[in-house]
């Protein structure tokens, strides 16, 4: 057994008093979880500590908190690890998650934010018509593709730390968008385009994410919500050519073209092109509003008129060739490490597969039924 100091953020909105820190010393094995520490403090020191938990095995998603400022599951964080990431005073700080109102102490209102956003994206399968007489048949690969987004346990850790939501509470957010990919990536779903169109029409939809990687870092299950958002954009822009209200698709197209032409980014073209070109009705007010800044930048010789208007750099042939080959493919090539693993991870698996195949009588699976050994 060892002693650990826990500093717990306390707040009861109905009390009228401001939030405060409460410190307790708990006595537990170092490999025990922060949740067990909180529960010991509650059971032995102060029964009024508010904390939500259920399975204690990192699968129910109830005990999302921030430990030393980082979001995660209290039951999935060892006390010794938490101590190692604590400040110099050796006190483990436990706070409620962010971006959601506090109900009491470590319990946040998941209904008010997280679940509303999940409901926002129609989180169920919209089946194709006509409904097949028996089950939908889908390929194995296509279901593997959505397993990463299916790994979500709805703990809200990504929502807690989303930096876009911090300034724009209406942002649909990482958890709900990862859930969207779960259906947009599912071949049985009939509403891929409508789902994406809906989230493109929403100014706080798929193009409101800043690529800050906070959700990837926060997720205790490896869902990588930001990567799922990028996949939604890829499908919305490339497959359905959806013109969203944020100019996201235009910006992406302008950027990709800019590099094809110049090899390196020519920023002076990117801005107007992101709004549809220098003379596009959407671009004109944007350009006028940025004029004072442009003038200051010119005055300070941050940029020169020549640099802004001319294109001194042309893409090397090698870059053009890359565009020709990759953009010319019939199908987009997407290498997902979560699914494929690295060569090092997979070392030996081919031999194992061969060994299994060799051990099985041809055409008969281990359960005796006829089938392939794939």
């Amino acid at each position, binding site marked *: 057994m060892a002693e650990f100091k826990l500093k717990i953020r306390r707040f009861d909105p109905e009390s009228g008093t401001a939030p405060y820190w409460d410190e307790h010393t708990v006595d537990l094995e170092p490999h025990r979880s922060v949740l067990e520490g909180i529960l010991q403090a509650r059971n032995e020191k102060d029964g009024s500590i508010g904390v939500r938990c259920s399975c204690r095995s990192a699968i129910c998603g109830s005990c999302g908190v921030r430990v030393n400022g980082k979001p995660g599951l209290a039951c999935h964080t060892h006390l010794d690890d938490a101590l190692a990431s604590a400040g110099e005073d050796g006190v483990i700080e436990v706070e409620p998650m962010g971006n959601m109102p506090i109900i009491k102490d470590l319990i946040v209102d998941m209904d008010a934010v997280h679940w509303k956003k999940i409901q926002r994206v129609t989180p169920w399968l919209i089946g194709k018509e006509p409904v097949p007489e028996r089950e939908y048949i889908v390929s194995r690969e296509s279901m593997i593709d959505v397993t990463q987004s299916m790994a979500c346990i709805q703990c809200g850790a990504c929502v807690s730390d989303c930096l876009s939501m911090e300034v724009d509470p209406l942002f649909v957010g990482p958890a709900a968008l990862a859930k969207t990919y779960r259906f947009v990536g599912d071949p049985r779903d009939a509403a891929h385009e409508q789902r994406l169109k809906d989230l493109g029409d929403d100014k706080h939809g798929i193009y409101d994410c800043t*690529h800050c990687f906070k959700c990837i870092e926060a997720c205790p299950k490896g869902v990588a919500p930001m990567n799922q958002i990028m996949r939604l954009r890829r499908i919305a822009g490339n497959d359905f050519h959806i013109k969203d209200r944020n100019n996201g698709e235009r910006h992406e197209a302008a950027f990709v073209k800019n590099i094809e032409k110049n090899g390196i980014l020519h920023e002076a073209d990117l801005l107007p092109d992101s709004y549809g070109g220098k003379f596009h009705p959407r671009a004109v007010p944007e350009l006028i509003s940025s004029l004072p800044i442009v003038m200051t930048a010119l005055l300070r010789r941050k940029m020169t008129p020549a640099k802004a208007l001319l294109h001194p750099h042309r893409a090397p042939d090698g870059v053009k060739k890359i565009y020709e080959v990759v953009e010319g493919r019939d199908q987009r090539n997407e290498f997902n490490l979560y699914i494929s693993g690295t060569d090092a991870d997979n070392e030996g698996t081919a031999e194992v597969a061969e060994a299994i195949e060799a051990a099985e009588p041809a055409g008969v699976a281990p359960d005796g039924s006829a089938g392939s050994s794939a």
Partner: protein
Amino acid sequence: MKVAYWPGCVSRGFTSELHGSMAAVAPMLDIELVELDRANCCGAGVIAEHSQELADTLNARTFALAQQEITQGADLMMNICSTCQGAQSECQQRLDASADYRAQVNETLADEGLEYQDGIINKNFLWVLVEDIGLDKLKTLVRQPLTDLRVGPFYGCYIVRPTDRLDINRAQPRDEYLGQVIETLGGTVIDYAGSHKCCGFPIITMNKAASLEQAGRHLGDAVDAEADCLVTPCPLCHLNLDLQQPMAAKQVGRELNMPVLHLPQLVGLALGISPEDLGLQHHIVKPTSVIDWSQAVVGGVGGW
């Protein structure tokens, strides 16, 4: 040391003072820069959003060009942009993970006679400064310590997350390096809420209000923490924090006037290079607080 140097796009465009200050600082740190002038944009996450293979192949091309320099004696590849670091590391992770995938990408590069071999070392100047040059050596080179200068670090998302991909851990706390550098240069590190947050730049054309709100909030937090200036290793953050600062101030409804320095500029000041040679006169927010300080020591910039 000799490095295959990838300056990035923005450091040669709207923040050309960054490229210039790196060139001014490098010889004093004994870094020989071999510029990768045929290399291409890293895609800044936007090209990957369009096509992952396109981004991976474009960056494999840059890596292959850098490896040619490494074969001829360069120690590693160095960049001066957090976004390049993050976008390139992401592509490298995929390229290094699978020999089959790498072979496919290399097939596209073959026409140009290029081939990427896994395992390139590509580091931001910040990492080179701490890991390869070393803080002890840096300390001996300081001519004008940044005494009494209160500096807030601003990292940029791409250089601090995700921690596993960027090899950030307790033994290698790359997400604390800016603070270590500021201290080594004699300055005071300011702790404020925004240091590791997003500047908002990636959505400046998509949701301007939210983008400027992020920049404005972090700058305001730095003002409240009484920082004299911020320092960043990311030119894209610099665009939102400096170039767009007047707009950000409007968005958050308060005066900001927070100078934002590029990392090589801060290093250069401490090494005794004049503010003018570091291009500080090109900033939108005049670094008056910094210059007041350097006037006392360096003797003024003049001319602007």
